């Protein structure tokens, strides 16, 4: 039975109580512990820095050439915090409420409350680090509003909030590198987790420059390795983002929570051709001042400026008068798909809707819009060669975030003792749909304010045997890594890694994307199995393993995506309801909204690796504070 270890008692006091009850590691003893942190993004970076500040010996790993490159850097819009600086009715409770509701009642109340509580400390921390947040003329912090909320609680640094928060965490890491408590291992990829006597005791890595495969021993392992959106090939994720670390951990015994919960972001630049390597997000903050519309009539090929007001359908404002263009992401994405399916989509392929700033430019002036979104407009123009100050942007939904991830308890520990999972890599806080500006909040809350406590408690409560890399489990893990590499290089087939990855992505987008059916999922599972088998036989990876070999790196990651893809489809098939980003066509209200089945599916699906069919474990969800209701943004 899964024990989430949620503290008892009133939710407002739960984290405080939990912190008090946790055991502490004496300051002088902290340096005797070795901690491995994999990933250097907002979660991993903030955790490595904070654990280093506390005095632990931290080894931090990233596959990029520098910890500053982690994909958190690409987050644009902002970070939520319940500061109520705008005096508009915000509170910790309201942020908690919005997040639970936004997640369509598939997140744990306890975790979400703690997240909302920690949100205020994050802003303080980041301001003190020198993050140049937007300011008012009086020098105070500025806020903007974001989807799924009716208050202004989003803090931002132009359209580069993720970059600035990450640089804050990166600088904190470098400060600890300077102090000697954190040792960075850039260009180093984790390829396996080592479990000794049921506890996570280290990892196996490959040095991406020399190809050397090495073992690293530790007292605890923290994974902050991000999400797995790249299973779809085309997503807004960085090209290197991958599931290998969490997938290896899954195969070593960590359960995988809600793998099918993926988020499709409504405002991305539409696909332009088959060579397309990734999709570019346009921050959701644009929906504050942009109005979304399509022509009223299908097949209307006139230029947007030629379509009179009366022949436009501002469908979000029409269907959701109280939230309008600021409905949550899942709702906005599904509606865009619906109007395009009706044949009212715009652009060359009909897969796009307009995001129009003409009204805001008239109302506020072009300079104001330029000040708010200048860099986003430039980016749009650079990619599409169109000027959004003059013609409306064209946008379409794209895979952006994965709410699913390794199952963790309230302490952010997985089902393997000593293995902690933070940020997007875990499943914990966003339920079936994440609200905008909440990913940055969660990554930093986990790293700065949760893991330093819970990891200490684990170390102080358990007596760990002294082991080194000569332990047979390390040798075995190292050998399994080497074997996989040998197989990939030995296939010498006829197809490139990318061609397989693109095909896998297409199967997933069609079968397990914005809307899903039992039949479509069955067919996707069969296709994935077939293609995976072909992959191991027919992939062509050139070059050797003792050198820089980007094809080999990709090949290993895609091999893991193949396995994860199947688990995602199994989970989506098993969850016979619609909720948040998981939309099963069989389950919808008469007006096309997601229809949950709380009677039967109010649980976290935690999948356990068995070697054969994965085993489903259920963690029931209880709602004592926010009562599940049909989400309404009307």
């Amino acid at each position: 039975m899964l024990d989430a270890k949620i503290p008892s008692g009133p939710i407002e006091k739960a984290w405080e109580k939990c912190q008090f009850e946790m055991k502490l590691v004496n300051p002088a003893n902290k340096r005797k512990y070795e901690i491995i942190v994999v990933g250097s993004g907002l979660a991993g970076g903030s955790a490595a820095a904070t654990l280093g500040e506390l005095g632990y010996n931290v080894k931090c790993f990233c596959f990029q050439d520098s910890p500053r490159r982690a994909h958190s850097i690409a987050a644009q819009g902002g970070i939520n915090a319940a500061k109520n600086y705008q005096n508009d009715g915000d509170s910790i409770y309201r942020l908690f409420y919005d997040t639970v509701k936004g997640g369509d009642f598939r997140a744990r109340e306890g975790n979400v409350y703690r997240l909302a509580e920690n949100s205020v400390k994050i802003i303080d921390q980041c301001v003190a680090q020198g993050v140049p947040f937007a300011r008012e003329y009086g020098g105070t912090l500025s806020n903007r509003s974001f989807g799924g909320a009716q208050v202004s609680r989003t803090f931002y640094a132009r359209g580069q909030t993720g970059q600035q928060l990450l640089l804050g965490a990166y600088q904190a890491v470098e400060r600890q590198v300077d102090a000697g408590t954190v040792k960075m291992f850039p260009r180093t990829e984790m390829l396996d987790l080592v479990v000794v006597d049921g506890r996570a005791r280290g990892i196996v890595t490959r040095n991406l420059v020399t190809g050397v495969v090495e073992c690293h021993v530790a007292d605890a392992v923290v994974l902050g390795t991000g999400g797995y959106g790249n299973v779809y090939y085309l997503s807004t994720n960085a090209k290197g983002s991958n599931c290998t670390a969490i997938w290896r951990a899954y195969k070593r015994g960590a359960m995988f929570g809600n793998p099918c919960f993926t988020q499709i972001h409504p405002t991305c630049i539409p696909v332009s051709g088959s060579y397309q390597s990734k999709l570019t997000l346009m921050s959701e903050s644009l929906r504050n001042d942009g109005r979304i519309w399509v022509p009223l009539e299908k097949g209307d090929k006139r230029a947007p400026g030629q379509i009179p007001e009366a022949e436009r359908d501002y469908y979000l404002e029409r269907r959701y008068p109280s939230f309008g263009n600021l409905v949550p992401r899942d709702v906005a994405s599904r509606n865009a798909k619906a109007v395009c399916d009706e044949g009212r989509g715009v652009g060359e392929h009909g897969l796009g809707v307009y995001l129009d700033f003409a009204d805001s430019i008239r109302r506020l002036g072009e300079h104001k819009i330029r000040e708010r979104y200048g860099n986003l407009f430039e980016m749009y123009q650079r990619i599409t060669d169109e000027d959004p100050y003059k013609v409306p942007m064209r946008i379409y939904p794209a895979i952006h975030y994965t709410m699913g991830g390794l199952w963790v308890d309230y302490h952010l520990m997985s089902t393997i003792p000593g293995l902690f999972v933070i940020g997007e890599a875990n499943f914990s806080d966003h339920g079936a749909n994440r609200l905008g500006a909440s990913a940055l909040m969660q990554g930093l809350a986990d790293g700065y304010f949760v893991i330093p406590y819970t990891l200490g408690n684990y170390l102080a409560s358990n007596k760990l045997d002294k082991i080194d890399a000569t332990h047979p489990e390390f040798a075995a893990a190292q050998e399994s890594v080497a074997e996989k590499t040998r197989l990939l290089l030995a296939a010498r087939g006829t197809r490139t890694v990318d061609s397989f990855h693109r095909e896998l992505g297409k199967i997933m987008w069609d079968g397990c994307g914005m809307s899903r059916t039992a039949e479509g999922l069955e067919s996707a599972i069969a296709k994935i199995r077939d293609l995976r088998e072909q992959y191991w036989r027919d992939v062509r990876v050139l070059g050797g393993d003792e050198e820089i070999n980007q094809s080999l790196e990709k090949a290993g990651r895609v091999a893991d995506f193949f396995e994860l893809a199947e688990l995602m489809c199994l989970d989506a098939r098993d969850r016979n309801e619609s909720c948040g980003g998981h939309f099963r066509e069989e389950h919808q209200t008469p007006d096309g909204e997601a229809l949950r089945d709380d009677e039967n599916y109010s649980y976290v699906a935690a999948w356990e690796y068995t070697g054969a069919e994965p085993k489903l474990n259920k963690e029931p969800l209880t709602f004592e504070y926010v009562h599940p209701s049909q989400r309404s943004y009307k």
Partner: protein
Amino acid sequence: MKLTFHIWRQKDRNTPGRMERYQSDNMNPDMSMLEALDVLNEELILRGEVPITFEHDCREGICGSCGFMINGIAHGPQTQTTVCQLTLRHFKDGENLYLEPWRARAFPVLRDLMVDRSPLDRIVAAGGYISVPAGSAPDGNTIPVPKDDAEASMDAAACIGCGACVAACPNASASLFTGAKISHLGLLPQGQPERDSRALRMVRQMNLESFGQCTNIGECTAVCPKGIPLAVINRMNGDYIKANWRK
């Protein structure tokens, strides 16, 4: 669209490299330069040739991973654009493109177009931060920051650490990079307590690495994909000199 690429190929740090010529007829003007290399690499793999190594990650111009010289210009001809966002519509059908790695003694080539930029991390580790352990910060609004200062700080903080400034500088100086960090933090009230020690230590570390000296040429800011202004170098020099006086 047809393009002829001349690309620097080098197996590793210690093996001499050379320019290789590749022709492709499958280019599309809407592709980014990196997508063009993806397509070229797919063709190479199918022909049994080892693909070209180049660094990249976010492909939206913010992570700073990518970058190489195109016809002698860092990140190519389009201003304020990294190679991942540079589309082929800026080139003519049939054009010859010469792609080379960043050239600077401090950035040794690791393979093909990939170089080692770790000196930049070491400069940041030498004081490019504000020392504030998690949990010790006061409420965010107790530190008011004049809007113009916050904006100027943000202008400098926008640096993505790609290294183009070093590659473009005839002296291979890292002054724009270092100046940007010193300015970002030095323009904010939070950054004042360590302002002197930061300038002294970061400049010292910059000089310890194999970078050249700044002679105010300005190539760095001309190629910078984020338009970091040359003024950050003046500010670095000012802070460094004042800190030395006060020492």
